[in-house]
């Protein structure tokens, strides 16, 4: 099950097998390999707290703290951007209920609601999930310090993110924000299709070999580091690109 546990030979064999698969077969293969899909179908037992039509909530067997919950959509998604809007909304309302449950039942002084998209973000399973972690002062989890960001950096980040964000929201001019927001659902799709040049170039790179996305995006400083991901990348590059969004699927595909 765990790619790290395979011998070199087995790994190569698996790689070959994966290369020959059609996107559909590969998706199916992924689901079969997914522990969380098996937890959902009941093939693997779990400590279930809650279940409805779209998701389940179980206790993490290797929790950060006692009562650590995993909220998992029943459908197999690797990362959050693949999930339909309606489901995301639903998942967050369930996360709210579960957070409340932890506060009440365990009498903790806080909860962390945490999502990791992508290997570099600490995602460990290839099935999207929301962690809801009971927290107490000084429990040593998420020791992240906030720091002051200078104005120049704020402006830079804002301009880079804003352009993409507005594209996604279907906003043409800032003045039209509110109206545009209401129409977002219809417009997002169109926007995606006429997405910018970088995507195409990424698609090409992916087709030819496992050289990763990187450079074409923005003035980013640590491009060199990406080569480390090459090996992993090669194993999974034949995966289905159903969303037609190269950079996102790259993230999703970083799992072996």
């Amino acid at each position, binding site marked *: 099950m765990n790619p790290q546990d395979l011998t070199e030979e087995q790994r190569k064999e698996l790689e070959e097998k994966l290369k020959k698969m059609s996107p559909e077969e590969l998706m199916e293969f992924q689901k079969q390999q997914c522990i969380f899909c098996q937890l959902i179908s009941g093939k693997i037992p779990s400590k279930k*707290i809650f279940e409805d039509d779209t998701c389940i909530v179980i*206790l993490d*067997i290797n*929790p*950060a*703290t*006692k009562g650590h919950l995993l909220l998992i959509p029943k459908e197999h998604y690797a990362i*959050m951007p693949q999930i339909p*809007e309606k489901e*995301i909304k639903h998942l*967050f*309302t369930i996360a*709210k209920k579960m*957070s*409340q449950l932890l*506060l*009440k*039942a*365990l009498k903790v*002084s*806080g*909860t*962390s*609601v*945490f999502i*990791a*998209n*992508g*290997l*570099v*973000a*600490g995602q460990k399973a290839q099935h999207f999930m929301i962690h809801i*972690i009971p927290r*107490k*002062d000084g*429990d040593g989890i998420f*020791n*992240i*310090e*906030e720091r*002051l*960001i200078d104005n120049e*950096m*704020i*402006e830079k*980040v804002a301009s*880079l*993110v*804003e352009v993409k*964000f*507005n594209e996604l929201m279907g*906003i043409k001019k800032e003045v039209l924000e*509110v109206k545009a927001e209401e129409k977002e659902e219809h417009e997002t799709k169109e926007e995606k299709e006429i997405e910018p040049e970088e995507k195409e170039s990424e698609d090409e790179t992916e087709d030819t070999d496992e050289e990763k996305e990187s450079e074409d*995006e*923005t003035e*980013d400083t640590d491009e060199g*580091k990406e080569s480390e*991901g090459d090996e992993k990348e090669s194993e999974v590059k034949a995966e289905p690109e159903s969303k037609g969004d190269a950079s996102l699927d790259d*993230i999703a595909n*970083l799992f072996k």
Partner: protein
Amino acid sequence: MKCEHCDIINGNSKAKIIFEDNEVVVAIKDLAVSPGQVTVFPKEHFTILELVPNNILEKCANLANKVGVAVFDGLAAQGTNILIKNGLGANQNVPHFSIDIIPRREEDGLDLTWAPKQLMEDEMETALMTLNKELDNVLKDNKEQETKSDEKVEKQGKGAKKEKSKEDKDNYLLKTIRRIP
């Protein structure tokens, strides 16, 4: 009470708003985990997750997802963390609910992991039982709250009593989570 997020909404902050409508704000804050962090929060001052009405929460969640996609593209991120710091115990440092979207790259020096615990089987069982016991109450609570907020919309101004019981509940939650500075 001083609230950095309300300050952002009122324009008294170095943060930059990249999107807002009458209910929610998307901003780049001047105090963040990493320079690419984007924060989504409701305009109304809700302290913690549990107090945010579902419709507003859903809107925030959807925006957070969109921001996540935008930072993949715009900042060439290789991954994202989405984090709600809920309550003092979770290091919530602004008393105003928010969702942080943190773009990630390899070797960016951020540590958002934890040491997994190996609990004994009976400890897991106790946790399961404790949570299952309380679950019905929480679900019932939520249902009541939802109906209540529906009613509130329908006949505003009436129902002072209901208002009060909602307040009690809020207080309870705030107490549970301890005062946020």
